[in-house]
């Protein structure tokens, strides 16, 4: 199960990874606050936001209202949507997917398990839903979309150093 922040949802949609995650049986959740942010993106014409909107409408990404966000917001001074997604991950004891470095640090310090698009891409590759070549190509695509080059390089090294898996 994964609690999806806007940033990861957007990047997972950009590289077409949301269906692959569903294919391997991962449950995808988000909060109403994050869903609202995505909706604004769709209104502004972002194609990926429209795709995510479809996933939410089809309940492939379940929208959840969390109750504990206020206490988290007060405790560590997070904004509503930030607090809601961290609260959801903690409440469900699931992964929090975000591309936000500050939110990753905060969530980790609160005891949440964290992930990002690159780590999820690697997981899908390890689950043999994409080939090594596809995985490297999608990491290149992430870089073109503004992904951290150091992270992309680390992931490529991880993949290329492990032999001929998934060829």
């Amino acid at each position, binding site marked *: 199960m994964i609690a999806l922040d806007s940033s990861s949802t957007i990047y997972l949609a950009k590289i077409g990874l949301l269906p692959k995650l569903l294919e391997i049986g991962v449950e995808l959740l988000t909060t109403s606050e994050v869903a609202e942010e995505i909706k604004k993106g769709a209104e*502004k014409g972002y194609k990926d936001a429209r795709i995510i909107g479809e996933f939410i409408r089809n309940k492939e990404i379940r929208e959840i209202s969390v109750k504990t966000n206020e206490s988290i917001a007060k405790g560590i001074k997070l904004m509503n949507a930030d607090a809601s997604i961290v609260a959801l991950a903690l409440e469900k004891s699931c992964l929090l997917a975000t591309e*936000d470095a500050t939110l*990753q640090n905060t969530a980790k310090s609160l005891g949440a398990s*964290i*992930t990002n698009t690159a780590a999820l891409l690697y997981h899908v590759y390890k689950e043999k839903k994409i080939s090594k070549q596809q995985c490297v190509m999608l990491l290149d695509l*992430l*870089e073109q979309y*503004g992904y951290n080059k150091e992270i*992309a390089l680390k992931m490529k090294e991880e993949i290329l150093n492990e032999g001929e898996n998934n060829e």
Partner: protein
Amino acid sequence: MSNPTTIRLYDDDVLFLRKYSETKKVDRTRLIKELLHEGVEKLKTEAAIADYKEGKRTIRECAELCRVDYRDFLNELAKRNLIGGNAKLQQIMLKDTSEQLGTFSS
């Protein structure tokens, strides 16, 4: 709202702005005000990005500081290849991911 402020400009800039405003038939004061505003907005974005890189603010907090949408600030981070988060946490994220989503199929 605007406040009157006196500033000394470089001679070359004054000359250029005078010629430009005459040619384009635009109000010189308005032109200077808009140029300065654009500069302030850029400075605000750079300051927010510096805060983000230092881990002082989340993307949403930066967007609020710059008075832009979440998406607009995410785009600013993308322009600088800052999407993905903390590279130092990548190994931890890989570990958390495999622990939470189960072992890889053989």
